[in-house]
C-alpha cells in the first residue's frame, strides 16, 4: 500500500536545488550576512523547508587555541561548561525549556572551532531560542565546584574511547609530527592535562574572556523563519555582549627536515595499523595548494583508486585504506591510514603508499580520473544539502575556516580549474620523505 499523509508531505517538502549538471554552484542558497557593532556576525539562510530551524553558534576557538603548556583539551572542556546555565536560566531551567521544545541540542569541539547547535521545530519558538542562547553566551555562570565535577566527566569521555587503538595511533602521529604548533595534541588533550582540569577554574575564566566573545563568534541560522524577525531578536539579545579584542598567535611549526618514525605496542590483540603524515598547507581558497591536494587524496586513495583496489580488494592485505587531508586554519597534516590484516604486511603496505606517491610525482593523472574526482566531490557535497540541518552543519565547517559562506563555491570553482599538472606539482612539493612521519601500531600479548 502506498501511503500519503498530510504530515508526511509537509515533512517531506525538502529542499529543492537545481541539477548540478546545469549549475556551477554547489551551494545554491541565498544568504544574508549582518554584523552587529560588537563584531558578532550573523549568517542567515531562510529556506523553504517547513517547520525546522537550525541555530548554530560557532566559536572560532578549538584545540588550535591551546597554545599554553598544560592547557591541552581546554577548548573541549569549556564546551562542557557552556551547558551549566546562567543566574537567569540555571542549568535545570535552561534544560527544561529546551526539553519542552523537543529541541535537539549539543556541542562539539574541533581543532579550530567549537560549535553549539539547537535544532527545533516551529518559528514561534525562535525568539526563545535566541534569548536562551544569547543569555548562556553572555551570562554563563558556574562555580569552582561545578567545574571540578565536570572535569571528571572529561576523564570519563577519555575512557569512552580508551579501547580504540585508532585513537592512540592518531594521538601519536600528531605528537610526533608536530614540534611546536598546538595541533600537536588532539582535541581531548593529553591525559595528564585532563587530570589537572579540576584545578583550572581561574584559567577557565580567562579562556572565556579571550574567546567567548562576539568578535570571535558567528551565528548561523538556517530554516523556516523570517529574516527581519531573526535580526530583531539577534539585536535585542546579543547587543550587550562585550568584545574581547584578543588575538591568538599560534606557534609557527618549523620546517621538518628529517623523516620521523614511531611505533606503539597496544597491550592486547588488535589488527596492526599504519598512518603516514606529511605537513601540508592550511585551507586557502585563493591558492591551488590545498584544493589540488584534496583532489590528489581522492585520486590516489579513494575506493575506486588503483592502490585501494590492489591492497584492499585484490591482494586483501588491508582492511581499510584511506587518505585524510583535513582542512584547517593553520598548516596541518596530510595523512594516509590503513588497518592491515597481518603484522608482517605493515612494511609492504607502507612501501606501496610511498611508491604510489612517487608515481604521482612522475606521472600526471588522466583527465578522465580527474573528472571523476571532481564529480564525486560535487555530488558528495550536494548529497549533504537535502535538509535544513544538512545545510547548516555542512556550512558550519566552512564558516569556521573563513567566516564567509562564499568560500564553498570558490573552493568548488577552484577544483574545476585544476589540471593534472597542478596535481603533479603539489605531489612534488609536499610528498618528500623528509617531510614524513610514519607511525605503526601492533597488538600485544596481554589477555
Amino acid at each position: 500500500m502506498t501511503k500519503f499523509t498530510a504530515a508526511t508531505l509537509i515533512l517531506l517538502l525538502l529542499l529543492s536545488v537545481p541539477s548540478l549538471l546545469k549549475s556551477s554552484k554547489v551551494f545554491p542558497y541565498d544568504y544574508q550576512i549582518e554584523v552587529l557593532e560588537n563584531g558578532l556576525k550573523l549568517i542567515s539562510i531562510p529556506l523553504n523547508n517547513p517547520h525546522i530551524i537550525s541555530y548554530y553558534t560557532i566559536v572560532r576557538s578549538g584545540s588550535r587555541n591551546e597554545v599554553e603548556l598544560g592547557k591541552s583539551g581546554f577548548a573541549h572542556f569549556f564546551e562542557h561548561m557552556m551547558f551549566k546555565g546562567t543566574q537567569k536560566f540555571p542549568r535545570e531551567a535552561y534544560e527544561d525549556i529546551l526539553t519542552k521544545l523537543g529541541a535537539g541540542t549539543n556541542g562539539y569541539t574541533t581543532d579550530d572551532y567549537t560549535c553549539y547547535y539547537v535544532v527545533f521545530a516551529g518559528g514561534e519558538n525562535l525568539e526563545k531560542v535566541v534569548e536562551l542562547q544569547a543569555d548562556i553566551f553572555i551570562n554563563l555562570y558556574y562555580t569552582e565546584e561545578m567545574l571540578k565535577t565536570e572535569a571528571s566527566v572529561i576523564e570519563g569521555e577519555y575512557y569512552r574511547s580508551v579501547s580504540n587503538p585508532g585513537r592512540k595511533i592518531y594521538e601519536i602521529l600528531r605528537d610526533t609530527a608536530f614540534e611546536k604548533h598546538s595541533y600537536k595534541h588532539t582535541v581531548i588533550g593529553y591525559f595528564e592535562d585532563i587530570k589537572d582540569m579540576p584545578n583550572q577554574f581561574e584559567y577557565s575564566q580567562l579562556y572565556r574572556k579571550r574567546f567567548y566573545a562576539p568578535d570571535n563568534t558567528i551565528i548561523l541560522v538556517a530554516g523556516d523563519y523570517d529574516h527581519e524577525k531573526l535580526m530583531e531578536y539577534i539585536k535585542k539579545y546579543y547587543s550587550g555582549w562585550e568584545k574581547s579584542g584578543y588575538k591568538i598567535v599560534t606557534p609557527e611549526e618549523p620546517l621538518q627536515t628529517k623523516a620521523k618514525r614511531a611505533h606503539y605496542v597496544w597491550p592486547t590483540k588488535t589488527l596492526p595499523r599504519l598512518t603516514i603524515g606529511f605537513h601540508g598547507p592550511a585551507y586557502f581558497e585563493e591558492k591551488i595548494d590545498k584544493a589540488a591536494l584534496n583532489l590528489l587524496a581522492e585520486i590516489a586513495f579513494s575506493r575506486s583508486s588503483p592502490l585501494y583496489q590492489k591492497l584492499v580488494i585484490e591482494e586483501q592485505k588491508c582492511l581499510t585504506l584511506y587518505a585524510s587531508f583535513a582542512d584547517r586554519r593553520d598548516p596541518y597534516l596530510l595523512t594516509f591510514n590503513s588497518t592491515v590484516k597481518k603484522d608482517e604486511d605493515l612494511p609492504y603496505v607502507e612501501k606501496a603508499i610511498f611508491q604510489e606517491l612517487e608515481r604521482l610525482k612522475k606521472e600526471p593523472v588522466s583527465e578522465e580520473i580527474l573528472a571523476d574526482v571532481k564529480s564525486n566531490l560535487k555530488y558528495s557535497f550536494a548529497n549533504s544539502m537535502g535538509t535544513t540541518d544538512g545545510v547548516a552543519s555542512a556550512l558550519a565547517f566552512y564558516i569556521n575556516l573563513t567566516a564567509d559562506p562564499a568560500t564553498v563555491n570558490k573552493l568548488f570553482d577552484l577544483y574545476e580549474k585544476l589540471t593534472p599538472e597542478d596535481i603533479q606539482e603539489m605531489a612534488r612539493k609536499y610528498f618528500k620523505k623528509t617531510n614524513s612521519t610514519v607511525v605503526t601500531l601492533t597488538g600485544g600479548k596481554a589477555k
Partner: protein
Amino acid sequence: MRKMKYYLWGILFLGISFLLLSCAKVNPNKVSFELLPLEGNPLVSFRILLKVGSAHDLSGKEGLCQLTFSMLANGGSKSMTFKEISKNLYPLAARVGLRVDKEMSVFTGQIHTDNLEKYYAILKDMLLNPGFREDDFTRIKTNHLNFLQKTLVGSNDEQFGKEILNLMMYEGHPYGHHETGTVEALESITLDEVKAFYQEHFRQGNITIGLAGGYPSDLPAKVREDFSSLPEGLTTPLELPEQRLPQGLEIVMADKKTPATALSMGYPLPISRADDDFFALWIAGSHFGEHRQHLSHLFQKIREERGQNYGDYAYTEHFIQGRRKFPDTNYCRQQQYFSIWIRPLTNSNRHFVLRQALRELKKLVEDGISRERFELVRTYLLNYTKLYAQTLGERLGWQMDSGYYGYQDFLEEVQKRLLKIKQEDVNRAIKKYLNFSNLYIAIITEDAEALKEALVANTPSPITYANPNMPTEILEEDLVIQSFPLAVKPEKVKIAPNTEFFQKAGLPQTD
C-alpha cells in the same frame, strides 16, 4: 489547455501505477512498495528491505545471512567485478549500504537525480545478478572474522558490552548470536552455502522496496518489473520461542586489560511498539534514560551530579543511534528488551556505579514518575519526535517500520497516543514491566575476579571526588549507595577472557 491534458494523463498514469503497486502488496508472494514521491526534489533515496535477518541463520552457520548480503553490497555482480562497480559508482558519489539485524536487512542508497539512471542500473545488477566470486567471498569472510576476533572484542568496549548482553538475553534463541556470526561458524561457511541462502531468501515476497524523493513517475513500475525476475514466495515467518527471563542478577564479565569498565544490563520485555502499553513505558524509559539527552535521570545522577562518565541511558526497545542522536530505522523485532547502558568509567568506581544504577532503577519501580516529570517528558517526546525524520532515508525508514508494527504512520500515531497517556498509565507500566532484582548484567573490566568477590560479599564501595566541596546531599546519598546491597550469588557470575567471546555459539564456557 494542452498542458492540462498532459497533466490529467499524468495523474491517470500515476493512479494506475499506484493501483498496480497496491495490488502487488496484497499478494504476499510478490515484491511490495513504500513510495514517497517528491517532485522537484534533487535526491532519491532507496531502501530495499528484506524480512530476513540473522535470526534466519541455521544453527552452526551463524553469520550466513550477513555474509550473503555482504556479497551483494560489497562484491561484484555477474557482469561487473567489485572493482568495476566501485569505479562506476565513484563519480556519482554513491554507494550501496547494508545493515543486517535479527529479523530484517536493508540495502540503502541515496543518489542525485542527475545520476539516478546510472545508479539504479548498478544497484539492480548488484542485487539481482550477484557474481558470488571466490575472491570476493574470501575477502568479505576474512573481514567478518577480523571484526569478531579483533575489532569487537579488542577495540570497542561500549559495543562489546551490548553484544554480551544480547548473548545473555537470548541464549539458545534465534536472536542469540551476533549478526556477523561466530568464528567457528563463519570458518565453516562455504560459497555454495552463501549461494543457497540467496536462492532461498532473496525472494519477492520477502522484499519491500522503498523509494523517496524526486524520482520519475515510471520508476516504481520499472523496479517492480525488474524485481519480478526473482522467484516468488517468501520465507516462513519466524516463530520465536519464549524469551528466558533472568533469575536474580545474572552476571557475565569479559576480563581484559583496560583502565575503564563498560556496563550494559537489561532483560527481555513482553511488549513492543505494536502494543498499547509501549507508549506509557516509552515515557518511563525516556524519563529514566533518554539517549544522549540531559533529560535522562541516570545521566543527571551519574554524570551531572558525580562526573563518573560520559553518559548513562536506558531504552525500552532495541536502540541503534542514527544520524545525530536520533533512533535509526529498520531494526524492527517481534521481541524487545529493556536495557541500561553505562558508558565506560574508571575501574575504581565500577562497583559503586553498578550499585547506583540498580538503586535508581529500584527507586523508579517503587516510586514511579512524578507528575511534573511526566508532563515534561511527554511534552519533550511530542516535540522531539518531530525531528526524527528529517532526511529522505529517515522518513522512508520510519514509514516502512510503521507497517511492521501495524501503524499507518507511527510518528503521527505518537502525536495522538502520547496525548492520551496519563501519569497513572506510566506508573502502572513501570510496575508491570520494570524490575530491579532480575537482570542480566554484562561487564567488561580488568581483574574481574576481584569485582566478583566484592559483588558477592557486598563489600562497601566508597568513591572519591576531585571536588573537595561536593554538596552534602550527594555525599550523604553516596553513603547509602556505597553499601546498597546487591543479591549476587557466586554461581550466577561467569568470567571469561574477552578473546573467548564470539568464538562459538552462545556464551563462552567458563567451567
